């Protein structure tokens, strides 16, 4: 059902956890749907210096969370904003069709974290 890469990220998720003094936080999903993600970012000189996630969800939800943190770590905020759910799925070597729409939310969570950062640092 899942590729080896998905399973690797599920078993050994990168960057799990929380950031105490996060500069931006993004929450997506809904417990009623079974998938909930939280992304926290630390920003330094317009770059993502650190990112951590917490996810309740299926294998796809956890793996997309994990790989997406690797994909944006160290990137500029503009680069990070270009990350799409599709790119995340592709980086994992594809996802089962049923999982594409509902569990593939990591890029959305990152965008929300970026928005959160921006709204706090508008001035």
């Amino acid at each position, binding site marked *: 059902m*899942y590729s080896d890469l998905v*399973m690797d990220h*599920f*078993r050994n*998720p990168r960057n*799990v956890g*929380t950031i105490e003094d996060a500069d931006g936080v993004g*929450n997506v999903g809904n*417990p*009623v*749907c*079974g*998938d*909930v*993600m*939280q992304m926290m970012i630390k920003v330094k000189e317009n770059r993502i210096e650190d990112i951590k996630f*917490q*996810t*309740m*969800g*299926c*294998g796809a*939800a*956890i793996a997309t969370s994990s790989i997406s943190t690797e994909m944006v770590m160290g990137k500029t905020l503009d680069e990070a904003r270009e990350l799409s759910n599709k790119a995340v799925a592709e980086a994992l070597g594809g996802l*089962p069709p*049923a*999982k594409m729409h*509902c*569990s593939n939310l990591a890029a959305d969570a990152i965008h929300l974290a970026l928005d959160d950062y921006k709204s706090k640092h508008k001035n």
Partner: protein
Amino acid sequence: MNNLVYLDHAATTPVHPRVLEEMLPYFTEHYGNPSSVYSLAQETRGAVEGARQGVADVVGASPRDIVFTSGGTESDNAAIRGVVWALRKHGDHIVTSAVEHHAIIDTCHQLEKLGFKLTVVPVDSYGMVRVEDVEKAITDKTVLVTIMMANNEMGTIQPIADIGALLKEMSKGKPRKVLFHTDAVQAAGALDIKVNKLGVDFLSLSAHKYYGPKGTGVLYIRRGVNFLPPQSGGGQERNRRAGTENVPGIVGCAAALKLADEKREAYLKHCVPLRDRLIQGVLSIGEGVHLTGHPTDRLPNSASFYFDNIEGESILLSLDFEGVAASSGSACTSASLEPSHVLLAMGIPAEQAHGSLRLTLGWDNDEAQVDHVLGVLPGIVNRLKAMSPLVHQ
């Protein structure tokens, strides 16, 4: 695969080697079409009729009331469709429960779209149907009640004999009896499935749930009831299910049922202690773990739970890494993302229903395997909890 702890016997079981042995000659050697007149066909016809007698003995019926099908889903579909189309001039109302298998639920809903009426009887928090609710649901237009014998997701056993007695009682002085079907797919080998004790007119079985081959099943049809065959053609199975007989499958379906029925006592002795050890052990993981289904009126091999704040598939994948095969809700819906309709019907909120885990035992399990599961599960639960944003919010 050697050290696999297989705890998904409600999804499917391997074919028992003795059953496979009985099937083998019918693939290559005794291959005649049972409908033919020559000697080669007499052998296969004899095998099919012997199998029919074997099944009839287990369900307490006459061989002519036994129809072989391609599995539980076909049996369920055939019972419902066969009755409602046959009786459409007499009534259009079906009664079922909120915890049926999709083979029942989806078929009822499809027929609803074609113009039939449906009442879905609720269940209590253990997933059990109340006989009074069935009684209340029945109208003059009701042609069929279909309620499963035991649930595939959480193991609760339904009061089928009581409902059977109710329907018989209610038919007094009526022009016709409301027909009664039970899906006994999960019950075979575990419970007594004698049709007269149950008071049912139709009963479904699926061989791969009791160590028989996939793609074979049984529909018991009480003599004289109305039935319009949903699969028509060459007149096989006394005009109730057309199609060249799956001879090896039929032989295996019956051999496995006979074996399962003979070993029923031993099966209970084997499963119940393991089940109770599993249930105790899993519940002792601590807060946020809940048993689903009835604490005692449940299948001997079924231990089912839900966990707060973690999701079922992630538990399954983690167990798989530890060599444990389990499921979350029913196997057929594992590709879907909907929370289980069975758990929702029992009043479990959707956000918790996503965290369900089903462990179903079989002959190949032992105490050491149960202890292996109990050994790895707490770590899995804790790891997933630690990752869950809901635990920390």
